[in-house]
């Protein structure tokens, strides 16, 4: 492995490696002993396929590695392989993810536990490589489990958890792991790589069970059905997504037991919230400038906290509403847009407002902020500007419901 530097640790069978978020996902695929992987290049996802390719070439990993002729085929191939009982991995970015859209819709419909990595990238045009979350969010209504990670370590761990949850017979839904382009996919960090024994204990073999497409289990998959069938089929997927929250909690508890690393609440991370007056929210790697800004603001006596949404689907609405009810105001930073949506806010902001609306108890005002589009840096001063506006709202002063941050104006 050319890019990884392994350091043997004395008291652990784990190894520490200096790897990117993409490489961490590739290592997770190796540890999960994935059977079929399809690839088609698009930046920043392509880093994953390159790393897996090296693992295969170096003899460290044994899998079917298929380079498709486009993203649509890429996702179709693994969909079929998964139906035949293979553990699969796939991924894409931006418009590549869009090109696979038809395959992306049928994957949850057929209850395929595909694990995919989305290297978040702005949708074309103007053809920017940088991060925006709109690509992965396009499948938010379809039955995909969606998770955003903010470190290479979390990328590796979450990939293992994703296989465990997706391939649980109670779920059988795909999972997309979103990694911010550049900030996560292209920067190396020290990552604890668990031993194969621990992974084997955590992750059972994929068992397609009654849905296995095999001559010994003659079934027809995806026959045409009309309005007499569609509602019942959708209701089944609704039930599977409903169960996903429970199975996720089980998996995180087991992860902690076996790997000795805890993520606390699986659905969202809370930072400095215990005594906070206001909190900021967001997904992905903007957590770093936000945390740094919070530390600076706290030195100045401002009690600001941060809630980082990890799992966007399933969305832990009740738990989130209960947590947010403690604060005087909430500011949500979206690295996405939803033109024409309620108050023209970003997607996460709209979901947070929706989660609060029907919740019992206190409902803090929620301000939406659109920032960091196309990979633009979200700076510490940007975060302070956001926090100042949220403080104004907490003091009862009128603030715009949606503001653009870091825009030349």
């Amino acid at each position, binding site marked *: 492995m050319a890019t990884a530097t392994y350091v043997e640790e004395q008291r652990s069978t784990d190894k520490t490696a200096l790897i990117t978020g993409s490489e961490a996902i590739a290592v997770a695929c190796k540890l999960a002993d994935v059977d079929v992987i399809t690839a088609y290049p698009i930046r920043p996802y392509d880093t994953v396929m390159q790393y897996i390719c090296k693992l295969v070439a170096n003899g460290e990993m044994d899998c079917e590695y298929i380079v498709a002729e486009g993203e649509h085929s890429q996702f179709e191939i693994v969909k079929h392989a998964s139906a035949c009982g293979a553990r699969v991995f796939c991924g894409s970015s931006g418009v590549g993810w869009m090109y696979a859209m038809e395959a992306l819709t049928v994957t949850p*419909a*057929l*209850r*395929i536990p595909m694990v995919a990595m989305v290297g978040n990238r702005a949708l074309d045009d103007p053809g920017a490589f940088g991060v925006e979350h709109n690509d992965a969010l396009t499948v938010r209504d379809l039955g995909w489990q969606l998770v955003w990670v903010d470190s290479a370590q979390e990328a590796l761990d979450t990939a293992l958890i994703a296989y465990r949850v997706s391939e649980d017979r109670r779920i*059988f839904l795909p999972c997309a792991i979103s990694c911010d382009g550049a900030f996560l996919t292209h920067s190396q960090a020290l990552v604890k790589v668990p031993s194969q024994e621990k992974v084997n204990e955590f992750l059972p073999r994929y068992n397609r069970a*009654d*849905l296995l497409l095999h001559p010994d289990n*003659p*079934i*027809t*998959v*995806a*026959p045409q*059905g*009309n*309005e*007499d069938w569609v*509602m*019942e*089929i959708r*209701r*089944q997927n609704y*039930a*599977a997504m409903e169960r996903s929250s429970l199975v996720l909690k089980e998996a995180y508890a087991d992860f902690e037991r076996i790997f000795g690393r805890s993520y606390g609440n699986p659905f969202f991370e809370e930072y400095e919230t215990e005594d906070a007056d206001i909190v900021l929210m967001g997904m992905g790697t903007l957590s770093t400038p936000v945390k740094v800004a919070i530390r600076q603001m706290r030195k100045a006596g401002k009690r600001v906290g941060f809630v980082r949404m990890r799992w966007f689907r399933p969305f832990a609405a009740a738990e989130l509403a209960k947590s947010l009810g403690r604060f005087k105001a909430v500011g949500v930073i979206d690295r996405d847009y939803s033109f024409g949506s309620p108050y023209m806010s970003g997607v996460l902001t709209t979901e947070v407002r929706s989660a609060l609306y029907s919740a019992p108890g206190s409902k803090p005002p929620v301000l939406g902020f659109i920032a960091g589009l196309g990979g633009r840096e979200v700076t510490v001063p940007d975060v302070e500007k956001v926090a100042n506006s949220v403080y104004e709202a907490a003091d009862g002063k009128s603030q715009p419901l949606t503001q653009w941050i870091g825009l030349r104006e």
Partner: protein
Amino acid sequence: MGRLYAIEVIYRGIFQKQLATRITRSIVLAAHEEGKLGISFGRYGDSPERNGIPAKGFAIVADDQLTLEEGMAKYEPKEVDVTIAVDDTLCKGVESWAWYGLQPVNKLLKPGGTLLVTSREQPETILQMAHRKETPYNLAILKGTVSFSGLWVYKDDHTDVRILGAIAKILPGLFTLKSVQKTIVDQWNDSVKAESAARAYERISSVAVRPDQGNPETPYKFNFPKWHEMGEGIAIPSIPAGKAIEDPTTHESGGFRPDRNPTFKKYTTRTMRPVVNFDTCIKCTLCWLQCPDSCFDVTPEGLYDANMQACCGCGVCEAVCPVKDCVTMVNETAFEDNASQWEAWRKDKKGYEAWLADKIKSRPERSHGFRYRGQYEEQVPEMLEVARKG
């Protein structure tokens, strides 16, 4: 609240789609001549582009807008004043492309409603096919050969206007013959068609059908499972492999009968069926090989028995059979059941020979008018002659 009228047209996919549309549209337009309002539509779940598949079109008419909305609030009518079957073999039942099981042709008829069939058969034959109904209704037969006028272009045989004239008589509250004729002239500027409508109006008559009259068989049904009873992942069990057949005389097993979907048979697509002369069969396998519906069972002695639970009546077997008069297509109205021809032949060869000759003679196959280009146009004068004689 005013009066609400509902009329359905049951037709065969593609060949009669334009015919059905012309009828339902003209019903609305003729009623509108008298100030009524209406809508015309085809059942969306049907697949009317498929060859021979039974499908439905509807016309809903009301005295006023609010009453019309009462009718429009249902996706399709639950009961109708008149059911029009534009092919008499549809009286055996309707299995649409969607899975509903076999629907009796008269299922939606209101008590006292009228089943209007275009046919050259007598009421007795129609009632051998149409299932029994708990409430009495009327049967009206409009004399005529089956109109397969509407494939891609409409080849006019006056069936559309003759049905409109008949409706004016059957359901006088809906519209008068005068309104029908005005609609015909407005749409097609053809006074001869208007005369055809008048002739049908004068000649149509109906007979009362009692609950004890009709085909006594219980149509096969399909029960929809609840969402949590269904398998997940849009996966369904495959149809199992088939098994050997038992010879009814020797009780020896052999051959092969593929298992078939017990709830989606689609044999009501059939307007004619093959009859097989097993004595002349040379076991060449061509019918078995070419049948698009895999309807041939292989008998223990290697003959091929067209299974009438699966046959859609396409006629490919007759076309590919190299032996003269071995496979012959016969009008579906000649048959009362789906029994195995091979079993009948095994049990009584002489009797079968006589049965076969009678079927072929009494109900020659229907050409459907599309065996070669221009065939339907050649048949139109004969159809018009039947219409004139009534």
